[in-house]
């Protein structure tokens, strides 16, 4: 299994390479793009934008809210403590705990969604080049069906193509 890729100095060149790969018949999901900064103002950097994260955060908030409500009210009913003439289940003051756990639920849900959808943590895949940290943008295809066409498309934009043996 061979990975073929090019390293590009500017986002414009990287966009050209992606366009070239698409034109040569490589589907979007097979094109690997890696950079040391987000490049969302370019078409290649703005793919995979659809996410359910806001809804999952709302769900997390709802779970947090329910946890807060049941934690406080069930505890107060199970171990009734009379405090300053207040009722046993004090919803006014419980709102504080419910609020904090609601927010915590939303925060945790966002982080868990990030971890799952961005596939973190993971081992650094072989298809990676340290040059990315020097500002280069990696555009490539792992295990292309037609290596020559991919190499040609990348060479047209970058002038340099690298190959990497990837483990199966």
């Amino acid at each position, binding site marked *: 299994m061979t990975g073929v890729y090019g390293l590009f100095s500017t986002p414009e060149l990287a966009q050209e390479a992606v366009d070239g790969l698409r034109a040569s018949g490589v589907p979007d999901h097979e094109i690997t793009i890696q*950079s040391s900064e987000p490049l*969302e103002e370019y078409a290649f950097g703005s793919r995979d934008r659809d996410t359910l994260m806001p809804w999952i955060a709302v769900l997390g908030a709802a779970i947090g809210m329910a946890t807060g409500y049941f934690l406080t009210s069930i505890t107060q009913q199970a171990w009734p403590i009379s405090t300053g003439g207040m009722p046993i289940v004090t919803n006014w*003051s419980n709102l504080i705990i419910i609020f904090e756990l609601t927010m915590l639920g939303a925060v945790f849900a966002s982080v868990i969604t*990030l971890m799952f959808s*961005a596939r973190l943590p993971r081992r650094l895949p072989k298809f990676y080049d340290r040059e990315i940290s020097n500002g280069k943008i990696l555009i490539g295809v792992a295990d292309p069906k037609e290596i020559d066409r991919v190499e040609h498309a990348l060479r047209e934009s970058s002038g340099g193509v690298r190959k990497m043996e990837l483990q199966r």
Partner: protein
Amino acid sequence: MTRRTSNSLTDDLLRPVLETSTKFYVTTALLALIVAAGFGTWFYQIYFGLGVTGDNWPVFWGLHETNFVFWIGISHAGTLISAILRIVNATWRRPVTRCAEVITAFALMIGALFPLIHLGRPWLAWWLIPYPSERLLWPNYRSPLVWDFFAINTYLLSSLLFLALPAIPDFALIRDRTTGWRNWFYGKLSLGWQGTPKQWHRLESAMHMMALAIIPIAISVHTIVSFDFSMAVVPMWHSTIFGPYFVVGAIFSGIAALNIVMAIVRKALHLEKYLQPIHFRNLGKLMLAMSLLWGYFVFNERLVTWYGNTPHEMAALWSTQMGRYSPLFWTMIVCNFVLPFPLLTIRKLRSITATVIASCGVVVGMWLERFLIIVPSLSYKGTPYSWGAYLPRWPEIVIFSSSFAAMALLYLLFSKFIPIISIWEMKVGEHPHIKVAAEVQEAEAAGELI
């Protein structure tokens, strides 16, 4: 952004992480010594009991509680300001956010330590954690101290995540540029980050979601800290404005602390190119707005108390206006209002030095404010026969001083292991259209665009 600019930015911001000078070791050792003295004093206090402090009838909350409220207030600088600036997409925020978020994380840790320090038997602190114990005692959810536990821990956890997530791409950058133990260490911290468009987008979405959640959390934290006081029927505490009053004071002191820290980081790590006058100018404007709001709340608090004219409240009020605590009160007014007002309003005076001087004044003034909220009210609680005074003793002063050394030490160590300015966010700021927007903002701030 050209490759050369990108590399020079990365090199500049990674330099403090990858290069270590003798000054670093000397400073670390000195600060560690002071922190050790603080811990030693705490053990002394545990061994001999709280009687070694100045806490005594009727003032059982002295310097330790003042420090608790003070540090929790300082923590408001970071995550809250960073979250607001992130949501309004202020382009000038980029070099400031991480500097600020670090303050939140460490100030919260230090602040949360003070209630433990103030416990006679700190090893029983876990009784606050809600779980059914063998004695069938669960925490009383009506107690403001349990609210504190939930609020502070929620804010601490959220702030740590808010700080850690955007650091992942920077860890990956260090991983790729180092060998040996650093490569292994930052490799683990970077969690296998590659920088695919999907990862970048998910990271930014998560940061946005968290920013939205963190703003109300931050506001709730200091409101709940204010409830520690306002839920008690103690002169000048039982007030409906304490929530917003504390929040404003916290943001005020937080911005001041951020200005001081940024000025030190700028000089010590040679980051003059990145932490520019515009950052101090903009934070100075925010601080000025907070100074005015703070003055408004102080006026409200005191006018209503004076108008009510109840004897025990008047005793507490006059002790701060003309009595025993008046020198502290008037110093506070000078530090929080009289000093910053001209320094931050008169254009000719506005500079990094002036902003830092005003900020130092505000930090001192806000510490005094916390002291003046707690101590005079407790001194004049109840009937006159039980009135009394409070003077801190050396264990409290040593622990108080060492908390500042702890903050400096933690900050120093953090900046040694993690770039204090987010590298990838700075790179985004260098993108052509964002750079133009930043230049327009800077021109507006300088009054060059009308």
